[in-house]
C-alpha cells in the first residue's frame, strides 16, 4: 500500500438494480483528473491497477469516437474493453459505452457517465454505470465474486459487519 496523505477511498453503491456508482475524491484539480482519464499514455499507467499491465489504450476523444483498452493480467490472460464516446464536456463530464470483449449477456452495452467536480483544488469523481439489464449486472457481480480482497466500508458492509 502506498502512503497517501489523503484518506481517499473509492465508494461503490448500487443506486438501482441496474446501476453501479463509484465515487472517489482526488487531491488534484479537475482538469488534471480529466487529463489522466483521457490521455492514452496516462491511462496506461493507472487503469490496470496492480493486476497487470496495459498493452493497448486507444482513445479517439470525440463524440462517436472509439476507445479500446487491453490489459495483460498477471496470470497471462488478456482482458479487453471497448466502446464509443457519446458526450464529451472537457474537464466536466464524459459519457461512453463500454463492452467487455468476452462472454457477455446479449443486449445493449453499458453506458458510463463520469463526472469531475472540483472544490478547493480537490476533485470528486463519480462514475455511474447504467447497465442494460439485471442479467448484465449479475454477470459483473459474478465475475467480481472471483477476487476476494476486502477493503472499505459502505452502508451495506456496515450492516453486515454489525451482525458478525
Amino acid at each position, binding site marked *: 500500500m502506498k502512503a497517501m496523505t489523503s484518506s481517499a477511498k473509492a465508494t461503490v453503491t448500487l443506486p438501482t438494480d*441496474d446501476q453501479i456508482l463509484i465515487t472517489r475524491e482526488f*487531491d488534484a484539480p479537475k482538469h488534471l483528473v480529466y487529463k489522466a482519464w483521457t490521455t492514452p499514455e496516462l491511462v496506461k499507467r493507472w487503469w490496470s*491497477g496492480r493486476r497487470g499491465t496495459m498493452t493497448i489504450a486507444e482513445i479517439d476523444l470525440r463524440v462517436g469516437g472509439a476507445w479500446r483498452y487491453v490489459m495483460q493480467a498477471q496470470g497471462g490472460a488478456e482482458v479487453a474493453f471497448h466502446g464509443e464516446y457519446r458526450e464529451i464536456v472537457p474537464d466536466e463530464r464524459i459519457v461512453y459505452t463500454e463492452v467487455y470483449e468476452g462472454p457477455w449477456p446479449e443486449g445493449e452495452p453499458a453506458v458510463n457517465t463520469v463526472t469531475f467536480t472540483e472544490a478547493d483544488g480537490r476533485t470528486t469523481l463519480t462514475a455511474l454505470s447504467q447497465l442494460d439489464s439485471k442479467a448484465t449486472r449479475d454477470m459483473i457481480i459474478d465475475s467480481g465474486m472471483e477476487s476476494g480482497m476486502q477493503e472499505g466500508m459502505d*452502508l*451495506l458492509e456496515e*450492516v453486515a459487519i454489525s*451482525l458478525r
Partner: protein
Amino acid sequence: MARAATTTDAFNAVAEPRRREILDILASEERPVNDLVGLLGLAQPQVSKHLRVLREVGLVDVRDEGRQRLYRLNGHALKPIHDWVSSYESSWSQRFDELDVVLEQLKREEQGDEGDDE
C-alpha cells in the same frame, strides 16, 4: 430502457432506499412493524410491502412473540453483496491509487511550468 423485474435477489431488494433504511434499523434490534412505521414515517401498508420483499429474498426473518410479529435482519443474506461490493471497491481502489501517483506527477509538472522564475 426495459427494467428487469425487481426483487428476485438480495441485490434487487437493497436497491430501494427505504428497504435499506429498514435493514439499518433491524441491524441494531429486532422490531415489530409498528416501530418501523414510526421510525420511517411511512404508512403501515408500505412498510409491510417492503418487509415482504425483504423476507422473500431472505434478508429479513420474522417470528411471533405473543401477539407481536418481530422482524430481524438475516446477515447471511447480505454476505454476497458485502463480498461483491468489497472486491469491486478493492479493484477500483487499486486503480485509483495508481491514478493518485499520476496526478501527483501532473501537479508537479504544472507547478514547474508556472514556477520557472521561482
